[in-house]
């Protein structure tokens, strides 16, 4: 079984590496093809968020258990400026960059569990989990 792994996010190339590793672990956890694609897309979204808004960060990728169920947990952390208004950031179509403004809200829908911890000036930690059905 793959050990928990922490990958750096410092450039566009790293976003691709994160995606590839997440896909590998998603297959191992036994996620369906649709769920694999969802998790990979959410990982791509959150990794790019860390890159664009905080200039980089890290992601920890691990397999978690809940009774007999297996899941995949991703924890993105950065030391960026933080999010002053979390509710606003999660609002559809709201973007500080020039994106579509669907990244955070969309990722929340793509995953089963979504937790966002952020303080202005303290960086941001986003933990998401997808359980195998």
């Amino acid at each position, binding site marked *: 079984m793959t050990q928990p792994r922490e990958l750096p996010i410092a450039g566009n190339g790293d976003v*691709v590496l994160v*995606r590839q590793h997440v896909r590998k672990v998603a297959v191992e956890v036994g996620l369906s093809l649709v769920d694999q694609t969802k998790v990979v897309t959410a990982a791509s979204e959150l990794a790019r968020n860390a890159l664009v808004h905080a200039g980089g960060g890290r992601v920890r990728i691990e397999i978690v258990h809940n009774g007999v169920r297996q899941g995949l947990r991703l924890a993105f952390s950065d030391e960026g400026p933080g999010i002053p208004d979390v509710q606003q950031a999660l609002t559809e179509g709201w973007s500080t960059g020039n994106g579509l403004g669907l990244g955070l809200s969309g990722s929340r829908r793509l995953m089963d569990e979504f937790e966002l911890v952020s303080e202005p000036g303290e960086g941001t930690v986003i933990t998401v989990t997808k359980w195998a059905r």
Partner: protein
Amino acid sequence: MTISTTAAQRRIEDLLGSHEAQTLKRWQEISETPADELRELFLALRAAVGEGDFSDVRGLLADFSRSRARLGLPPAQTSRAVFGLKEAVYELVEADGDPEALRGYIWFSKLVDDLGLFTFETYSAAREKIIRDQAEQLLELSTPVVKLWEGIVAVPLIGTLDSARTQVVMEKLLQMLVETGSEHAVIDITGVPAVDTEVAQHLLKTVAAARLMGAECSISGISPQIAHTIVTLGIEFGDIVTKATLADALSHALQRSGVELRRESSARIAVKAERA
């Protein structure tokens, strides 16, 4: 201190001069590198030790490590080739037994370390350049625009769609639309493993640009899992025509341009069967 260091340096220089053949042979044995490459380096280094100017040696070393990087030789072997000289010279100094020579060896060892690091830096710079060149070539390779029919062009996208690639794709597509006078463009994303908001935004922009030029643009190759993901993410493609396969998109474009395709083969097969 300066005087004694210089004396020690001169001692090393003398040793290198008087034991040239022997040192070269040992160096070659230790580093497993062709003798002619080492001889040139050795002569330059000996001259440099005397003159105190190492620019020639650095130039030679840069060529040496660059050619090795291009050949794909492992970096350890390349630096071993340089560090091997320390061992060869140490044997000389030990046999000589002069304390002055030992002092000189400390200085010489530092010098070789510096040169070794320099070799390694040049080596990795050369490797990075190769990788950069390849990435550029790949960018060119991976974005062909193909003509499917009179007035219909297609871009089969494969792999990751980042800003740089989208730029290339968009330019090529718009160029091709003008050159071929096409009115229909199909962007096929069968080979794109995941469509996130950034990729979607790039696609939307490309379609918008093609439309501005008066062409109708559709997106094909949307797999079930990508469709599912796009819907969950909340991305809206608006009135852009999307199709599951490139074939569907082609037939849609043909229909729009008034070309009618009919299947005639079934009738012919029936006739043949009767004769047989």
